């Protein structure tokens, strides 16, 4: 991404609050995400980071606050003010969501090609050969052998499934990708491969992203900015390298100090 600072945030949150009964999961979350930025949301279990992600992506409805997305089709829209139809359409075209467990983001019973092609078919692609070629190209980009195009994800390893999930999301050239612990539960070498892949794709496709993770190493590698959450609140935020190298808040300092040395 080169050139001048762009004029509008791609995603804005103001006063976002989500409750489950009397328990407040996240409270008064404010931020602006600018095009091309990857925002990391880190925190421990129960910090509210996943709830925040789900509210941003329209999967949960907050009790208070506004989330504004600068859509390519409709201009700035209130994510929770949209009709369900529009929100579902947005989430299949302009957004991506990479789940921690790839099974939640794939159709396990159909081939990899069908999985990748689905978003294209959902918006009217009707040429089998073209869809197949695009799907094969994407398998390549996520470093899965093209010979596996007709295999079902049940025959894939965990790392392959995750890469397939990534391809399935990116085929529609989304502008904003939500990621929930995209490398959680995977072997370390597999994680490394996927992180590299994500890093490369975010760069070449100029994606904006919100990435939830508890792993500060993942945050260091993938994110430009970081928000640290504790007990539903953002306790610190700033440039990733600055938050990790010069943490101001007591909780952030404790988190950073807790990283096991290798």
């Amino acid at each position: 991404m080169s050139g001048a600072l762009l004029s509008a945030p791609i995603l804005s949150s103001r006063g976002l609050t989500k409750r489950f009964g009397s328990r407040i999961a996240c409270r008064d979350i404010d931020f602006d995400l600018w095009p091309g930025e990857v925002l990391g949301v880190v925190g421990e279990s129960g910090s509210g980071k996943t709830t925040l992600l789900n509210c941003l992506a329209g999967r949960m409805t907050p009790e208070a606050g506004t989330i504004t997305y600068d859509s390519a089709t409709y201009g700035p829209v209130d994510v929770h003010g949209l009709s369900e139809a529009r929100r579902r359409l947005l989430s299949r075209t302009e957004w991506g969501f990479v789940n921690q467990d790839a099974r939640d983001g794939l159709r396990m019973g159909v081939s990899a090609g069908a999985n990748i092609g689905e978003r294209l078919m959902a918006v009217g692609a009707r040429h089998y050969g073209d869809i197949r070629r695009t799907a094969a190209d994407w398998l390549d980009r996520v470093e899965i052998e093209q010979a596996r195009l007709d295999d079902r994800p049940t025959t894939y390893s965990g790392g392959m499934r995750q890469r397939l999930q990534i391809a399935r999301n990116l085929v529609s050239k989304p502008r904003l990708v939500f990621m929930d612990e995209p490398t959680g539960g995977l072997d370390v070498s597999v994680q490394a491969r996927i992180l590299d892949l994500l890093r490369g794709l975010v760069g070449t496709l100029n994606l904006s992203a919100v990435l939830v993770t508890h792993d500060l190493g993942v945050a260091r590698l993938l994110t430009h900015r970081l928000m640290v959450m504790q007990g539903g609140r953002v306790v610190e935020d700033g440039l990733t390298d600055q938050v990790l190298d010069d943490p101001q808040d007591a909780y952030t300092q404790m988190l950073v100090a807790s990283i096991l040395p290798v």
Partner: protein
Amino acid sequence: MPALRVSGLTKSFVVHAQGDLALPVLRDVALAVSPGECLALVGPSGSGKSTLLRSLYGNYRPDAGSIRVRHGADWVELVRAEPRTVLDVRRRTLGFVSQFLRVIPRVATIDVVAEPAIRLGMNADEAHRRAEFLLGVLGIPAKLWSLPPATFSGGEQQRVNIARSLSVDYPVLLLDEPTASLDPANRDGVVELIHQRREAGAAIVGIFHDVSVRDALATRIHDVALSGNSVGVHA
């Protein structure tokens, strides 16, 4: 006209785990660097040289003061700037050679070096050619270019670091012990490259432990231990 202007820069570290212990490091630092100048930061260990340098890059957060950099046609204030502002300045204007190459798993050395240029819009082939040239000058053999730097020696990693930081012609360069792990032969190559940048108009702020390197590159000295600074023991 300066490319970088600092005034009133003040920073302490607060360690909450030790009962909010405050360690003041910088107080009211002021300096300015113009294109073609190389300002060497000197002072005893712990006087805040590295803290100052990292603050200039936005890696450390100052408590007070102003850091203004000439970014394109404008002056940009970096203290308390929005992240995207700092990111844009780092992309095009401000380069940093740190002592540590944070190793990105699996990315080939040639790609590590070319990345900043490609991100700025340079054509990939051209960026790779430039990377090859820099790696060549810095003595990294071609057979290592397609390997990730994770398995390289400290000195090799440092030279990859330097190549990466020089792949873009940054108007302002910050150098933190650029020759620290290098043997004399490689050191000279680095000094030559930095010298060329200075001659081409870059404004440079650097920490050079090696006196001969400092003498070769610096046009001015700034003593961090003087005038109200470094009351504590952090660097």
